[in-house]
């Protein structure tokens, strides 16, 4: 059962080939057996899983099943789950049991999907390697000496190793797409505002967006159908009607114009990855698409603009962690100042502190214009680059990352080197566009991701393109040896 797609599992449940309880037991058993080597989960509550699976079986028996009823789904530990710890990978929230569900979690519960567990992540989603978690680093199932990418590295590793058929992640600067690429799975970051942010621990509110991570575009479409939609409780949620993301998966690619930004194929791109991307683009050409060279002239400014805007918003958002209302509190504070400063010293890890300090600096008196306002102006220039491209082409394609997964520890002590990992993904968040990563080959056994970037609210087209690509290729069907029992 573990090697089936979500679409196949839905069919199997409906045809009574297996029950939701059997299905969920299968994944619980795999988590117990394989996750010690990966550390992809922070919390798994077996009895809650089985209770939800039993309820799903009854609902299926009663003929009242929704599409995802009975399907196990793992959630990044950034989404608030009522009655279950939501740590965000931080000591600050190690004891935090939310009194409510995130809207995304409610949506899955309403469909009868089973909450399989909460996945590991970079602390407060700040990172590109899933090494900064309070609960220890996540390992890449393709080679446990490598990082799985981040910040949604636990979700990516869990899906890649078939510990969950699908998972959710969040993406502020690449945190769904980059780990999807490193772990050989499919992930989509929808348009800003498409999926509710309510109950998703905030990092950078003008960039954060949740999305699905699974083996295929079809499975991502099934999950996105359950996730997307207007939420009155999220002030930046889009009121635009949601499409059925499964409906157009088979549309032809004939006549599709794909823009290749020359800045994404320059000196920083490793040769092996470039080879895989170019082969994938040939495949899309064979499916009827036309390749057009385009330019995103402000690409070199995405990292600097992002590393002002994201830390500035983070410093504001994370000011709520004060040791007063919930979360960690230092022992025996002598006064209120000591309570705040020591709680935050103890509760946050080094990267989170750095970003809060950079953000505080960028927003402080005398520097606001030089940093925050300047970065927001550059952000507009970056968005205008995309708008100009989309006058010539339907979508933009390129690599998700400059190279495949790197070794654990290789960049964890060098923040700026780590930031460069996201060179091709950050701009998508700055412009609020949908972006996805699709498995497109291997370099020395390490997966490579093809990035597809669409117009605002163009998720259905991206999923359609990825689906057609996956009908013609089998990269998304490859599984790591440790997960198939073939590892020596």
């Amino acid at each position, binding site marked *: 059962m573990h090697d089936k797609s979500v679409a196949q599992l839905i069919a199997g449940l409906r045809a009574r080939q297996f029950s939701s309880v059997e299905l969920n037991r299968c994944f619980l058993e795999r988590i117990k057996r394989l996750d010690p080597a990966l550390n992809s989960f922070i919390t798994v509550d077996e009895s809650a899983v089985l209770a939800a699976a039993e309820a799903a079986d009854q609902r299926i028996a009663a003929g009242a099943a929704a599409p995802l009823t009975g399907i196990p789904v793992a959630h990044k530990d950034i989404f608030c789950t009522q009655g279950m710890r939501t740590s965000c990978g931080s000591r600050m929230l190690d004891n935090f049991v939310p009194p409510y569900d995130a809207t995304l979690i409610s949506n899955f519960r309403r469909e009868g999907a089973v909450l399989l567990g909460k996945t590991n992540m970079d602390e407060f989603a700040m990172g590109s390697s899933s090494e900064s978690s309070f609960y220890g680093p996540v390992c890449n199932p393709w080679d446990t000496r490598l990082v799985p990418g981040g910040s949604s590295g636990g979700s990516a590793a869990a899906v890649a190793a078939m510990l969950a058929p699908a998972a959710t992640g969040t993406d502020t600067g690449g945190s769904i797409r980059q780990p999807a690429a490193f772990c050989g799975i499919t992930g989509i970051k929808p348009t*800003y505002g498409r999926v509710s942010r309510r109950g998703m621990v905030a990092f950078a509110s003008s960039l954060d967006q949740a999305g699905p991570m699974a083996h295929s575009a079809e499975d991502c479409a099934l999950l996105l159908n359950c996730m997307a939609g207007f939420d009155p409780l999220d002030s930046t949620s889009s009121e635009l009607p949601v499409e059925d993301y499964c409906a157009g998966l088979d549309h032809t690619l004939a006549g599709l114009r794909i823009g290749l930004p020359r800045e994404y194929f320059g000196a920083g791109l490793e040769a092996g990855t470039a080879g895989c991307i170019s082969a994938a683009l040939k495949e899309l050409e064979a499916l009827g698409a036309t390749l057009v060279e385009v330019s995103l002239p402000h690409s070199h*400014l995405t990292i600097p603009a992002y590393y002002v805007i994201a830390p500035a918003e983070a410093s504001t958002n994370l000011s709520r962690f004060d040791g007063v209302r*919930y979360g960690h509190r230092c022992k025996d504070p002598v006064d209120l100042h000591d*309570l705040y400063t020591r709680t935050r010293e103890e509760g946050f890890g080094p990267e989170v502190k750095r970003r809060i*300090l950079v953000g505080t600096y960028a927003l402080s008196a005398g520097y606001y214009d030089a940093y925050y*306002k300047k970065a927001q102006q550059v952000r507009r220039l970056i*968005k205008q680059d995309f708008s100009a491209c989309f006058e010539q082409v339907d979508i933009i394609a390129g690599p998700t990352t400059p190279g495949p997964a790197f070794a654990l520890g290789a960049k964890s002590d060098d923040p700026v080197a780590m930031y460069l990992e996201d060179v091709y993904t950050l701009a998508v968040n700055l412009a609020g566009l949908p972006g996805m990563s699709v498995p497109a080959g291997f370099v020395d056994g390490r997966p490579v991701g093809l990035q597809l970037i669409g117009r605002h609210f163009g998720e259905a087209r991206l999923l359609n393109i990825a689906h057609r690509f996956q009908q013609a290729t089998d990269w998304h069907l490859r599984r790591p040896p440790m997960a198939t029992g073939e590892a020596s």
Partner: protein
Amino acid sequence: MAIGQDEIEKIAELARIRIAPGQIGDVTRRITEILGMVDQLQAVDTRDVEPMANPLDAVQRLRPDIVTEQNQREAFQAIAPAVENGLYLVPRVVE
């Protein structure tokens, strides 16, 4: 832009994060590297460019001024480190 240890201490105070004395040097070095990278922005001509706060240029949505939420004080305070009589407890602020 170069940034000194004294300035890092000032920012840390604004951000209410204690930095152990032995770590100030390392934190200053890292933040200086990040700000050095960010300084590329200064070279860009952004005259007449409107700052972009929201990727969809959306404006804050308003709703009718009516009560829609129930009071959930007990549920919220159940997870607080210290409460008494419905109030959050902190070290004494006023004598």
